[in-house]
């Protein structure tokens, strides 16, 4: 399966070509090249998936294939950085997800970004992102993953700051970069910890279940935690940064300053699930050697999920609602991984998490693209400027509704199946966890339908010009993703992706399914009463729970806490004294050296008159003096 190399390399070539040809071609040409390349690699990914899942199963277990592997930099016998392609069920699934969503976004952008300044640059960056993300998922070793991890960070930064003349976009891109980079420091330290003790970066070796790899970690502990807990915990911090887990989530809502298709691709479907992917990739290690960290991941995921869902209920910017919803759904995936064990039934959470990753990528991309379509029509992100759009935009309305039903967990849409598996896994872990997650699922249904009704129903806002349905290039991805959302739930996902690579038949747990559907329908009903027609209920609720409402609207003041810590504590107590020391001690010393030299040279400058005869005269006197000295001393 050598051709999988092309899947990764073609976007890179497309990035280089588009980047170099920046303004020499017509914008539309760049767009078509980008979309064509994506089309080719999407096709290749489908072929890969078909071939892999059909022919590479031995005794009911999927093989791990490495079609390409090169040693890139060799430092010592143990420390060498390799590049390669690893095909196993999760990476093949990610290839399909990334190329599909990326292709849809590329097509969508042809129309959405039409006429924007820097259209070619936009497509070049999209290709760069696709390349980095694909390189990340097929990484054979943790260091390659880290390299591409940083590359996706950079391309995310570039795309968030696409409108670089807008100060808020620039600030958001910096924030996203700095926060994730800060988390990646943890990731790097974790990698070093892990590889120092195991002497390998290779995923194949780490996840082989071979206990001798981890032999040197036994008994080593630091501050009461074993060294493996430290390593895996630090690695998870990197994942938490990219996947916007509390308290590192603050960059994601701001990242919505980027163009909407970018939000759909990077900040909903692909990059933000990189953290989930990382944990899934190292899952056997977490499960055996750091179960405490794995439980920690479950609690962090659950808290983040609840936290983000509550905030999503009161936001008024539609993209921010979707951003918080993304955070909440990634929380679901993290919880599922955290509560999972290893093996066929024990590994239910793992399978559910990957399943949800897959379905979520599709319906959340659909939601974002739908939101983009709405924003395209009314030129605003605010809910108050919308309302009653269903008459004007039927395609957007229907596809958005399908996505909302999917995320709310209504059968037979895809979200129902994956969420149901997650809830079953949670109930098996502990009834409390299951209960909390069911409640969050209810909240999800509520805020999504609040969003839906506020956009498409409710009181019509007076528009400057009549909103219109989006053109074909934008409508097509919506319809395509809606179709995927409708059918994806029926994929026998357990036959493809499981924790132990073996088959697992998904059984619907009817009690859990019944409860979750009941809660979802109740929540939707509540949202319908409150938001379908203009009513006083939301306002009354807002005044009754004024404190909670205010706190949630200001996102529970997490940003303010960050500002307080950075500006008041770090800047004032650490940075300012250091800056003073730098300016008054170090700089002053150096300035002193310079000053003394300058003073001396200005004094002795007149010696260098440039008059040769003067020099010769001094020289002669010196010679005579020395001669006299020699003469008299003898």
């Amino acid at each position: 399966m050598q051709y999988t190399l092309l899947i990764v390399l073609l976007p890179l070539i497309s990035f280089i070509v588009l980047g170099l040809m920046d303004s020499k071609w017509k914008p539309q040409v760049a767009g078509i090249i980008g979309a064509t390349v994506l089309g080719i690699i999407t096709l290749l990914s489908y072929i890969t998936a078909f071939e892999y899942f059909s022919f590479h199963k031995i005794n009911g277990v999927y093989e791990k294939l490495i079609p390409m592997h090169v040693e890139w930099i060799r430092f010592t016998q143990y420390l060498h950085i390799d590049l390669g392609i690893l095909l196993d069920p999760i990476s093949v699934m990610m290839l399909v997800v990334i190329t599909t969503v990326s292709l849809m976004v590329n097509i969508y952008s042809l129309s959405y970004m039409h006429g924007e300044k820097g259209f070619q640059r936009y497509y070049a960056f999209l290709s760069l992102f696709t390349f980095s993300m694909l390189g990340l998922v097929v990484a054979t070793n943790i260091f390659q993953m880290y390299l591409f991890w940083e590359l996706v960070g950079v391309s995310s930064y570039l795309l968030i700051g696409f409108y670089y003349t807008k100060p808020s976009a620039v600030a958001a891109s910096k924030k996203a970069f700095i926060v994730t980079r800060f988390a990646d420091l943890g990731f790097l330290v974790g990698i070093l910890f892990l590889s120092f003790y195991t002497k390998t970066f290779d995923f194949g070796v780490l996840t082989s279940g071979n206990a001798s790899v981890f032999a040197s970690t036994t008994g080593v502990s630091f501050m009461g935690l074993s060294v493996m807990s430290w390593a895996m915990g630090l690695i998870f911090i990197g994942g938490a940064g990219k996947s916007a887990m509390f308290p590192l989530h603050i960059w994601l809502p701001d990242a919505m300053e980027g163009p909407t298709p970018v939000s759909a691709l990077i900040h909903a479907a692909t990059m933000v699930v990189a953290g989930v992917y990382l944990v899934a990739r190292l899952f056997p290690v977490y499960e055996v050697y750091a179960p405490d960290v794995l439980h920690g991941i479950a609690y962090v995921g659950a808290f983040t999920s609840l936290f983000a869902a509550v905030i999503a209920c009161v936001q008024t910017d539609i993209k921010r609602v979707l951003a918080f919803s993304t955070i909440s759904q990634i929380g679901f995936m993290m919880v599922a991984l955290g509560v999972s064990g290893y093996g066929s039934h024990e590994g239910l959470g793992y399978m559910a998490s990957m399943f949800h990753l897959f379905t979520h990528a599709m319906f959340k991309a659909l939601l974002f693209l739908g939101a983009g379509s709405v924003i395209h029509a009314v030129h605003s992100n605010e809910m108050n400027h919308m309302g009653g759009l269903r008459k004007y935009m039927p395609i957007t309305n229907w596809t958005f509704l399908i996505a909302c039903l999917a995320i709310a967990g209504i059968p037979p849409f895809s979200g129902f199946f994956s969420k149901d598996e997650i809830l079953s896994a949670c109930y098996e872990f502990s009834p409390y966890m299951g209960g909390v997650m069911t409640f969050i699922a209810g909240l999800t249904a509520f805020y999504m339908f609040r969003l839906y009704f506020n956009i498409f129903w409710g009181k019509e806002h007076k528009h400057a010009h009549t909103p219109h349905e989006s053109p074909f290039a934008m409508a097509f991805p919506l319809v395509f993703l809606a179709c995927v959302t409708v059918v994806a739930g029926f994929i026998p996902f357990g036959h493809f992706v499981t924790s132990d690579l073996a088959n697992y038949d998904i059984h619907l747990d009817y009690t859990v399914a019944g409860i979750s559907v009941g809660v979802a329908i109740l929540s939707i009903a509540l949202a319908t009463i409150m938001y379908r027609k203009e009513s006083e209920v939301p306002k009354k609720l807002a005044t009754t729970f004024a404190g909670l409402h205010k706190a949630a609207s200001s996102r529970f003041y997490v940003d303010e806490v960050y500002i307080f810590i950075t500006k008041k504590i770090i800047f004032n107590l650490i940075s300012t004294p250091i800056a003073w020391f730098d300016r008054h001690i170090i700089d002053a010393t150096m300035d002193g050296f310079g000053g003394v030299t300058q003073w001396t040279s200005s004094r002795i400058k007149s010696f260098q008159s440039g008059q040769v005869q003067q020099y010769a005269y001094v020289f002669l006197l010196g010679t005579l003096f020395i001669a006299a000295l020699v003469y008299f001393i003898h």
Partner: protein
Amino acid sequence: MGDLFINFFSNPVPMEAYLGVSLIMFFAGVYGFLSRKSLLMILVSIELMLNAADINFVVFNRYLYPGQMEGFFFTLFAIAIAACETAVAIAIIINIYRNLTSVEVGELDEMKE
């Protein structure tokens, strides 16, 4: 008269006489080097100093090590090198003249800063 003539040639010239000549030549050169304003005259002074040194070589060889030839050959070398040096110096002076239309040594202080 004839005796005087014979005496003069049969008594070798004392070494001090030669050294006296070379001393006078050398300091004439030094004086010229320091006092003349024209580059050409300075060059002439340098030649004077060089020739004084050459005389010293020959004299010391002739009087102190009569059987050997090093001093004579050294002088020949020095003469050859002096010729080269003059050629280079004159080339430089011509270039200076082209740039500054002057060969006054006092004006050559452009590179002081």
